[in-house]
């Protein structure tokens, strides 16, 4: 096995384990911390794919900003396991069944998609994820979607300010 392959399996194992721990932890603060571990693993996967820019942006935006705000909210709300309402057996059963169905649908679409057939992930080769190439592609062939998403961000920011100002 190649070193990248060994790393891939180790990181994937940690990712799946911590994703499970997000769901299984009783304390919401632990859940958030496990979720941060998941984001770390995803960052490492990006690095294995030689997409350094995506890797570091994933870390800055998700692990560094969004999860901090998440942690803020949960720490201030002081959620307890006691205050959490217990759901009845039927509701839980329905949740498990519908979640499982969704998983089956997603896996089957991904497996049968034409784009995914006979394709292998490029390990430690390929340079589309490097910052220079990504920037060139974003500002030439994908300029319009890029601008539209920046307008979306701007409107979200304005919306946040308006909601925050409401007394």
């Amino acid at each position, binding site marked *: 096995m190649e070193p990248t392959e060994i790393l891939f399996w180790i990181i994937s194992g940690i990712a799946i384990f911590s994703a499970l721990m997000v769901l299984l932890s009783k304390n919401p*603060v632990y859940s958030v911390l496990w979720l941060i571990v998941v984001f770390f693993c995803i960052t490492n996967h990006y690095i294995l794919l030689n997409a*350094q820019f995506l890797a570091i942006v994933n870390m800055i935006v998700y692990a*560094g*900003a969004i999860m*901090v705000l998440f942690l803020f909210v949960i*720490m201030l709300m002081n959620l307890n396991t006691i205050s959490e309402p217990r759901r009845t057996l039927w509701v839980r059963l329905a949740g498990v069944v519908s979640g499982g169905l969704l998983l089956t649908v997603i896996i089957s679409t991904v497996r049968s998609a034409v784009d995914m057939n006979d394709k292998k992930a490029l390990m430690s080769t390929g340079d589309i994820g490097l910052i220079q190439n990504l920037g060139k592609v974003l500002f030439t062939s994908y300029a319009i979607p890029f601008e539209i998403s920046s307008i979306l961000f701007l409107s979200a920011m304005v919306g946040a300010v308006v909601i925050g100002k409401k007394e």
Partner: protein
Amino acid sequence: MTLLTIDWMFLLQKLILIAVIITVSLVIAMYATYAERKIAAIMQDRRGPNRAGPFGILQPLADGLKLFFKEEIIPNSSSKFLFILGPSLAMLTAMMTCAVIPWGNKLEFGETSISLQIADINIGMLYVFAIVSLGVYGIMIGGWSSNNKFSLLAALRGASQVISYELAMGLSLIALLMMTGNLSLRSIVDQQMAVGSLWNIAYQPLGFLIFFICALAECNRAPFDLPEAENELNMGYHQEYSSMKLGFFLFAEYINMFISSAIMATLFFGGYDIPFLDEKTLSPNLAAILGLGAFMTKIFIFIFIFMWIRWTLPRFRYDQLMDLGWKKLIPLALANMLVTGAVILWQMKG
């Protein structure tokens, strides 16, 4: 020697380099505590520590020993794991940044040349930002798991302060990166070292000022040391900590100070560039060692300025701090960015 297609000699070389750099930064942080007490003493017309060894030079060792021998108290009602994780994370994130800083040029031993940098990644600056943004977790987890209202308040203060000033810091750097067109710290230094080019401070004085203020805030140094404002929050987020866990929190602050001084010297003051000297005229090893010395001198000057500011300026009020960050520094950094962009466009046209 290759096994599993890994060059183990390369790995060994990097491991030794990591060990050396971490030891050096720990020793420098240790003596930064001594320097802080001496500088405070000089500014307040006192003598400062002078009992342990000549000029009190062994004082940091005595302090460390004392912290190790103190009783370790873990609050009953707190989560033990998170309580220990807090200071460990603070220490870890403080040390991780030194991986991308170019400490000097290449040393040459016969055929092998050793670069005095752990990793020259082409997103170096963004890596520094990622680690800085992770630095919040140490404070937040430590404050929350102490199960103390003062600690939690201080942790929230600290986190919101770090998040707010990160934005202005990033914006002030975008202007610099537009000029250099590169995120790798080594090539930023190389551009400043080239004959006939000035240090970046000459082109980006406003950017440096904003970056410096934000660095003060990111390190929780006075006048921005609100997370540990004694008169409002007792001791702040490390109220419940004792023994070496408290030491870790305090120590992480000094390491952060050292690392952010190193980053400022790299980005704006030419890194390991020796002023008024063309390094190519010297032999490579001599140039590397002299360059390392020049870099360290720059770092020490910055650390001194950090301490100078701490012992002369009073602390900000919390709303003033937020005002400065959001309403003054961010618009200023944006204006700086626009002007830089306009000038670069104008030069490209001309």
